[in-house]
């Protein structure tokens, strides 16, 4: 019984760390080459007209998420938002591959060297670990309650 409480807690810690590293890395990457990122967004066939807002909103949002995910109070909310964000990124790639006027050379920002399929797989992995993390949080809550009861 004791072990089964520990495993979810460890899983949550791993998920937290993974997301935090991903977001902070991606945000810094974008901010360092912000002009490059702006041009890539402007040439992206999907969010073209929002490029000016997204160029700042996205890295700042990622930084906020990357840090607040460590907070016990907001961990659950941050994980839900992160999960949503990963779904959005995946949708973005699917839209580019299927519905956009043309397919750009690079998607810019994070992990440029990945191909489109690898990118989707990468995103799916993160979506899955977010679900695992959220499930573990729920599991720990119910267990805590049953212990208290």
């Amino acid at each position, binding site marked *: 019984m004791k072990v089964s409480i520990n495993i979810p807690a460890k899983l949550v810690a791993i998920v937290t760390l993974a997301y935090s590293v991903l977001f902070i890395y991606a945000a810094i990457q974008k901010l360092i080459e912000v002009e490059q990122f*702006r*041009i890539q*967004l*402007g*040439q992206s*066939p*999907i*969010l*073209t*007209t*929002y*490029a000016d807002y997204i160029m700042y909103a996205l890295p700042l949002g990622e930084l906020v998420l990357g840090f607040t995910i460590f907070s016990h109070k907001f961990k659950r909310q941050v994980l*839900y*938002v992160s*999960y*949503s*964000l*990963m*779904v*959005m990124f995946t*949708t*973005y790639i699917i*839209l580019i591959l299927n*519905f*956009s*006027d*043309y397919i750009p050379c690079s998607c810019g920002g994070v992990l440029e060297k990945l191909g489109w399929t690898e990118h989707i797989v990468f995103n799916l992995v993160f979506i899955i670990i977010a*679900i695992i993390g*959220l*499930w573990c949080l*729920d599991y720990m809550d*119910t267990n805590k309650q049953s212990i208290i009861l």
Partner: protein
Amino acid sequence: MRVKSFIWRLLGFGVAGILLMVLLFVTSEQEMHHNNAFIRRYPHHPIKKLFDFNLGYNSYYLAGFENDRLYLGNHTAPLHLLEVNLKTKDTTHIKIGLESKDIPFQSITVNVVPPYFFVMDGTVPCILRGYTRDWEARDWMKGEVYFTNAKAVDSVSIFIKTISSSNRQAILGLLQYSNGFNTYLYPELLEKQMDGIFDVDGLLTMSPDFKSLGYSYYYRNEFMILDADLKSIQRMKTIDTVSMAQITLSKISKTGEVKMTSPPLIINRTAAQFDAFMLIHSNRLGKYEQSEMLEDAFIIDVYNWEKERYEFSFYLYHFDTGKLKELKVFESYLVALSGEKLSVNQIKSSVFK
């Protein structure tokens, strides 16, 4: 119970993410194609270079096209035509014969509208007409109307730009022959912003099937498409943001002359029309563009006037020193003139759809 609500929450956040992304995409695309604030889009390879051809002189202009054969006129040798076969690259020199030898020509342009060709000089004014099978130009119009630019539409009608004798304003019109010549002028087509001559200046364009005509203003972000009778008109804005001509004009001198006192800001440099497309060359940079590109290539913007939207842009890489003088599309060929060279490119029909 807990599992159920957990799955519902996951679905909720997932669907919200998808919907938000799709919404951003749809609204962004709408803006991009219909209310574009100067953001260009460059899809890969809409044209393929076939070859460059050295003409040896910089005085050539595009006169027309018939069955793979491109005709080039020459401003300094006005009765000489160069025929370039775009398939075989063979060239033929053509000498145009004139019926009247004593016309005081000043600036001749030759225009080929198969099976006819026209020799036009709006300063005389006169137009001679002949068949491309023998290149003998016979007297056709003389003294009817002066014009500054002209493009033949068919065997009996000429799209002209002229200066009104009553108010000295530039006007578009048609010169037509049926039991005698008639000139139809449409003063409402060119919209005056300053003096009605310089500010409305622009380029007459013609689709290669001669079914639709066009006019692209040099100094503002606008062009228009007209039918062959100049009856129906469609005005369209380009993605550029300059809507008022930015030119400065001198006061009228004693001789009645007005001059531009500073270099004008040119928005639409040259244009070409084909099918439902208007191609416009501009060297003004949009948002998110690198200025270094201007040193390597001409930027061409593609509009679809039937759908009233900006489609995309592409680079036509420099093929000689100097500006892009002319651009035209014939069948699937995109031909361009710069310096002493002719550039021949293939249009990808999968991109231009």
